[in-house]
Every structure is written in C-alpha cells, then in structure tokens.
C-alpha cells in the first residue's frame, strides 16, 4: 500500500511540473502555431536560475522558509526573455514549419551553452530547502509537504489558465485568434501584441515549472533535451493545442513514469513512447485534440 502511494504521489508531482511546461507548449502552439522545442530550455533555465536566486536571497537575509516564493519570483522574472525571443520568432511566422522548428532547435543549441557558461557542466543542486516545510503524515504515510505545495500550486495555475481562457474578455479574444488569425486581425485584434503576451506566458510556465522542480531534483545540462521529449509525449497523448489534453497527458505520463521506475526500470521511457504511438494510431489527434485532416 505504501509503495502504491509513493508511486501515486511521485507520479502526480512529476505530472504537476510536466503540466506547466506542456501548458506553455500548448498555448504557444494553439495561438502561434509554433511547436517550441526550446520549452525544455526554458525549464532548465528556470531550474538553474532558481538555485542561484534562492542562494542569493538566503545570503541576503531572506528567511529560508520563504524559498518557494523566491523560486516563483525568479521564474516570473525570467519571463522577461520571452518578448526578446518572440521578436526572433516573428521572422518565421509566415514561413514553412520546417523553419519554425529549426529556429527553436537553434535556440536549444544556444541555450545549452548559455547554461554551461553561467553554471558549468556539473549538475547543480539546491540545498535541503524542501525539508523546510517538513513532512505531512497521514497514518503511517510520510509525504514531503513541499511536493504537496507544488501539486497545489500547479492545480491553482491550471485553474487560473482555465479561468483566463474561458471567462475573461482577453481569453476569449485569444481563443478567437487561435481559431482564425486573419479574421480576428480584420476585427481589430492586435495580433502582434497578443503573440508577445502568449509567448511570454508560455515561457513563464516553463521557467516556473523548472524553478519549482529544482528543490527535489538536480539541474543538469541534459535537462532541456530530456524534458522536451516528455513534454512532447504529453501534448501528443492529450492532443496538440488542448489545455485539458495537457492536464490528462501530464497525468498519464507522470504516473506511468513513476510506475515504470519502481516496477520495471528498463521500460521507463519506452513505455511512454509506446503509449504515444498507440494513441496516435487509435486517436490520431490525441485524446482532446481537434481532428486533423
């Protein structure tokens, strides 16, 4: 029973973080029609910068118990790189997808060395801050409070995005633009500005995801390229461009990974790809995706 809960909790925690990155990917794809390979790089940048920020904040006298807020703030601050990168992507919006994909691949290569330049090649860890919040015990189960907080934060963000897209005026305009860019442009939507905000939001989701995961896992240079594949698996299973899809996909991938790691470590990623391929065969557009022609 304990083993089962360990898998469940580990899986949901992983899913919570994956959801953030995948949500960023979905948002950018839904509106800008660009599949951003660099989403993993934003995630890794968030992780590294999170470590630096927390260490800096603690040495500047911020009580260690506030480290989660510092992490969130550092993730939000990194959103500033979003508009700059969007400016670069602007050059390829009306080009073939091959160029869009390649441009984000170029960003992956560049970020790889940006990370190496600032933080070096050895993996970095944040000290034992996650234990600041202690553990929750339910019966004979012990659960780190930090993991629960991250899951809650992710759920909160999920609801926030949902409310933003469904209930606010800007969210409606955004969905309309995703549906038909020319028409909303003709109706007076400032598409340029919308792309900037959407891409920045996508970036922030990635960097915050990375910042929140770093107290529990080391930040390494393999992080960006490894996460991209998982995030891809999530959006393909859930359906490209769908937020609900990102949520379900993240849960499936997160839980499957946790289960595979504890039962049969060899098939860890293999199992995920098999699910991806199975979904694509049975339901080409993913669970919540719109049918593709």
């Amino acid at each position, binding site marked *: 029973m304990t083993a089962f809960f360990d898998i469940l909790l580990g899986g949901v925690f992983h899913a919570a973080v994956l959801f953030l990155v995948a949500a960023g990917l979905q948002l950018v794809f839904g509106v800008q029609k660009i*599949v951003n*390979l660099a989403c993993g790089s934003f995630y890794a940048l968030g992780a590294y910068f999170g470590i630096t920020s927390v260490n800096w904040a603690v040495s500047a006298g911020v009580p260690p118990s506030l480290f989660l807020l510092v992490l969130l703030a550092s993730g939000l601050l990194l959103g500033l790189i979003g508009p700059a990168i969007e400016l*670069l992507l602007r*050059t*390829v919006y009306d*080009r073939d*997808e*091959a*160029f869009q*994909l*390649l*441009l984000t*691949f*170029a*960003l*992956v*290569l*560049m970020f*790889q*060395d*940006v990370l*190496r*330049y600032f933080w070096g090649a050895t993996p970095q860890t944040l000290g034992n801050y996650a234990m600041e919040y202690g553990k929750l015990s339910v019966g004979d189960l012990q659960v780190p409070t930090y993991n629960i907080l991250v899951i809650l934060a992710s759920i909160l963000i999920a609801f926030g995005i949902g409310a933003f897209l469904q209930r606010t005026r800007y969210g409606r305009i955004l969905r309309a633009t995703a549906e038909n860019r020319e028409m909303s442009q003709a109706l007076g939507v400032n598409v340029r500005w919308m792309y900037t905000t959407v891409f920045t939001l996508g970036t922030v989701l990635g960097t915050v995801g990375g910042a929140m995961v770093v107290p529990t896992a080391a930040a390494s240079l393999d992080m960006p*390229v490894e996460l*991209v*594949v998982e995030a*891809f*698996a999530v959006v*393909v299973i859930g359906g*490209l461009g769908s937020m609900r899809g990102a949520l379900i996909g993240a849960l499936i991938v997160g839980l499957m990974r946790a289960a595979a790691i504890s039962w049969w*470590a*060899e*098939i*860890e*990623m*293999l199992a995920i*790809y*098999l699910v*991806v*391929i199975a979904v*694509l*065969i049975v339901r*080409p557009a993913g669970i919540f995706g719109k049918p*593709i022609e």
Partner: protein
Amino acid sequence: MRIAALVVAIVVLAAVPKFAQPYYVTLVLPALAYSIALLGFNLLFGYTGLLSFGHALFVAIGAYGAAVASSKLGIKSFELVLLLSGLAAVVVAIPVALLSVRYVRIFFGILTLAFGMLFHSFLFKFYNITGGDTGIRVLRPTLLGEAYADLDKTTFLIGPFYYYCLALLVVLGIAMWRIVRSPFGMHLRAIRENPRKAEYLGVRVRFFRLVAFLISAFYCAIGGVILAVNTGQADPELAYWTHSGELVFMTVLGGFASFLGPIVGAFAFIFLKSELMGATQYWRFWLGAILVLIVVLFPRGLVGLGQDLWNKVRRK
C-alpha cells in the same frame, strides 16, 4: 558545365588523402557518410515535403547493423554489412512509415521523433542486447574481399576505406539523381506542391510517400554504417532526437531546394563544427547562432546564397 564542375569536385575529393593532413581526411569521411544519409533524407524532406525529426533512427540502425554484423555475427565483408544494415533499416522503416505517412506537417515530425526516441531508449536501457550507453564495437571490415591487414587503423580509414566511401557516394548520388528525375520523383514533387490535387490526378499519395520514406531510410543506414566503421563504435546517441535535428540542420544549411544542397551542407557542417570545437568550448552556441542566421536570412542555404552571388556577378 555542371557535369564538369562535379567531375572536378570528385577529383578534388579523390586527391584529398594525397595532400591534406590525416586529420582533415578523417573529417571528410563523416562528411561523406552524412552526404549519403542526407541525399536520402532530402528525398523525403526537400522533394516530398515531409520533415522527419527522427531519421537519426535509421542512421543508428545502420551503425548498430555494422556493429552486430561485425562483432556478433563475425561478418567481415563490407558489402554484406552494407546490404544487411540497409535492409534492416528498410524492414524497420516499413511499420514506422506505414504509421507516419498518415500524417503530414508537424504531426509527421512529432511521430517520427517519437519513433526515434523509442529506439533510443531501447538501445539505452536494454544493456544485455545493445551494450547500453557504451554501445557495441565495430570491427574493421574487408573491402571487396581485401583485408588490408598490413595497414594500421588510420591508414586503412584514410586510404582504401576513404576511396570506397567516395565511390559509394558517387554511385548512390547518381542513383538518387535518377530517382528524382524519374516519373516517381515527379510524383513526389507533385505531392509536395499539392497533395490533394495530386490525389485527384490519380497519384497514390500515401504509397509514394511510403516508398520515399523507405528509400530515405536505406540511404541513412548506409551513412550510419560508414560513420560507425569510422569511429569503430555504435552508441545510442546516434539515435537521439538532437542528432535528427542535426540532420535537418545540415540539409537546410546546404539548401534543401537543390539536389546537391544536402552534400554541401554535410561538408560545411562537419568542418564548421570541427573548427568551432577547436576554437571554443561554447561551439554549440555559435552553431545555433549560425543556424538562426541561415533560417532567418538565407532560407535557401549555402547553395541558394551561392546562386544569388553568381547571378549578381554575371549581371555586372
């Protein structure tokens, strides 16, 4: 004129081992290997309009084919190794292609990426079969029955093996030229330009995409065999998605709209990478920056750039 230029290029390449330092000759070898692989890759990308982000899978199959054939099965003949690895790639490509060609555009890219990563995690995790992260050693093959036992490793690679690979590139290049000029190649271009219209005109779109996919897999595997013999090792990194990205990078760097573009791209990429790696430890950054420049400013690649310059000079 064009044929004369090609003959000159081949003669220059044939003369490389005579006057260049061995180091540069060992760089030309992977460039030859990637040239062959990209000729196939571009049949799918440039001519059929399908961007695969997983073709490193077939390069890896070629490399592991060479490793298994030489280390485990004891096959020495390079011709046999090439044939077996190429066929293995085609056999694997059949189910992959059957599933993938149902999609186009970004979905095709993602699905091929998933297949590539599926193979990578198989190579990486099933240590007993594949040697895990260290991979499998590739033993030196015999060329046309000749073992060259008196030559050391480098002399073998930059001597007989080099000429063999150059000849292979020429032969496979001519074969690919025939393919793209044939009615089959015309069909592929029609599919790229307008699949629906092609279908109305009676082109069996999926079947042609499938065949193009299989040919590209075969070419990639041949390239993979040469790469593996050159390094003496087949390792899982060959199947990783970033390696697939590099294949696309090279093709676009040279120019996917021209037949020889991928070959130009392969040579430019290999030498650029080697120079950058010698100059700075942050070579990935500069490689990425160059890719940004190519994508944003010169989408027709080096060949397109060359054509533009040539036209300007001629007009003056």
